[in-house]
């Protein structure tokens, strides 16, 4: 049965964050005054990377259950990790942990165990900086992801297949992404094909479509083209979605259209929900 391999240090999996960094990502998004889509998405990805690191941390050691790649596309297509990782296509999660571009300090609300919350000082590492410039070369970006995957899969042919979490706010400016997406989804390990999940963000109040199972649920041609290159959610992702209260069922695709801020956060939570270690309640905010 596919998508059942245990994620271990001997058989890690790969998560690719594919980010639209085109000029339109400078549009406002979310409730925060002056916040742009690019700011919100960078924060969500940094949060997802933070949580991945924490889940893989065993006392003082970060165990490499995951490898991570961040690819941005806009004015150019390239690696989106900053700091010492700027030149690396794929980095083990331990290298991600030890090489944030910078660490910010702040406070985080955590449960006090008695039904309330307490503010605790925390450090927020930052790996991905917001960018919003240029067009939307989605096909070229998916081609770049395919090259990364091919290289990684040649060294990791077994184990849980890679997950690509693609976020975009607009239509491709270099053609229909169907072929490039299908090429990504044709790759895999002995445990299944690469999973490609797509999240389309929108600042408009258009009706959002979350994890549809039928193409007819998509409102237009662009949504349908993304639906076709969205993998069906395997059971373990489906369980994670349902735990978050997201409406998803057997056959649901990893696809959100017209996502609002909460949908973006959930998209990354669901997409990174697998781990060699089960998440526990104290990790919840």
């Amino acid at each position, binding site marked *: 049965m596919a998508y059942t391999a245990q994620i271990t240090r001997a058989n890690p999996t790969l998560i690719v964050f594919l980010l639209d960094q085109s000029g339109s990502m400078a549009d406002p998004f979310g409730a925060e005054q002056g916040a742009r889509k690019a700011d919100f998405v960078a924060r969500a990805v940094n949060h997802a990377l933070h949580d991945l*690191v924490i889940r893989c941390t065993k006392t*003082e050691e970060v165990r490499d259950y995951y490898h991570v790649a961040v690819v941005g596309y806009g004015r150019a297509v390239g690696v989106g990790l900053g700091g010492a990782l700027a030149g690396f296509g794929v980095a083990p999660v331990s290298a991600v942990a030890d090489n944030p571009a910078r660490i910010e300090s702040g406070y985080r609300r955590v449960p006090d165990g008695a039904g309330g919350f307490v503010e605790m000082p925390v450090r927020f590492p930052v790996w991905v900086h917001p960018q919003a410039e240029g067009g939307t070369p989605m096909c070229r970006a998916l081609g770049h992801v395919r090259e990364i995957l091919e290289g990684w899969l040649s060294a990791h042919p077994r184990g849980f297949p890679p997950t690509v979490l693609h976020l975009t706010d607009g239509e491709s400016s270099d053609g229909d992404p169907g072929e490039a997406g299908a090429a990504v989804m044709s790759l895999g390990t002995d445990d299944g094909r690469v999973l490609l999940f797509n999240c389309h963000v929108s600042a408009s109040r258009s009706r959002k479509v979350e994890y549809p199972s039928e193409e007819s649920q998509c409102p237009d041609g662009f949504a349908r083209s993304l639906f076709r290159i969205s993998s069906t959610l395997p059971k373990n992702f489906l369980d994670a979605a349902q735990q978050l209260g997201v409406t998803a069922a057997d056959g649901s695709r990893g696809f959100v259209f017209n996502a609002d801020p909460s949908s973006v956060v959930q998209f990354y939570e669901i997409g990174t929900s697998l781990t060699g270690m*089960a998440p526990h309640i*104290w990790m919840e905010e």
Partner: protein
Amino acid sequence: MSKGCRVETRHFMLPKEGSTAEECEDALAFDAGALRFAVADGATEAFDARRWAERLALEWVGAVRAPLTAREFGAWLGEQAAWLHASWEGRTLSWYAEEKRRAGSFAAFAGLRLEAAKGRVGWRALALGDSCLVQRRGGETVAALPLSNHEEFGSTPPLAPSSESLRAAALSRLVEAEGRAEPGDTFLLATDALSAWYFEALARRPEAAEEFDSLLAASDNESLAALVRRERAALRMRDDDVAALRIRLLPA
């Protein structure tokens, strides 16, 4: 041996596949003289979970007075947590280790005390989480706690936290129990993966549970390890650290 009550103890531990014995985060401890027995299972995600589990098992067995009520256990847990957190003082940590340390450590725990008085043997036990105690007599289960069915095991059990702020909520999930024991009775204390497997085996494949019981009774730990690996490979047992402690009540 304790007055009026003789026991035979057997124990077995095996780390998850690919891990070394030093990485095993399950712990067990017993004092056949004091008639106290405990297992603990450090949460893999938690900071310093192995030491926390070891501390809980060893100190519960060795305490001057076994903490057997929620109130006693809560006060005792606070003392153990203070020791653990003090041992972390003065260390400079990475941002991620610091975050883990701030959340504290977590472990499942189950403890058993036998008591002999006036020719009878009684037992008292407490458990927090998914490490279990099973009392068997003549091939039947007499008592099981805090869980008694493999379907009750989940991914987020309540655990004994080292963090003071989480203690009250955790203690509300503590299970206390007591009962009588007879010569020939066996008690099995086991951490979650093995407990879940054992309950399922008792219900559906009693010959597998019997095989496990026989090997543990014979201290044939090599064959036990083969059995656990076989069951893991067949996906009938979750690949997790395993700790088991078997106590058999002998005739007086």
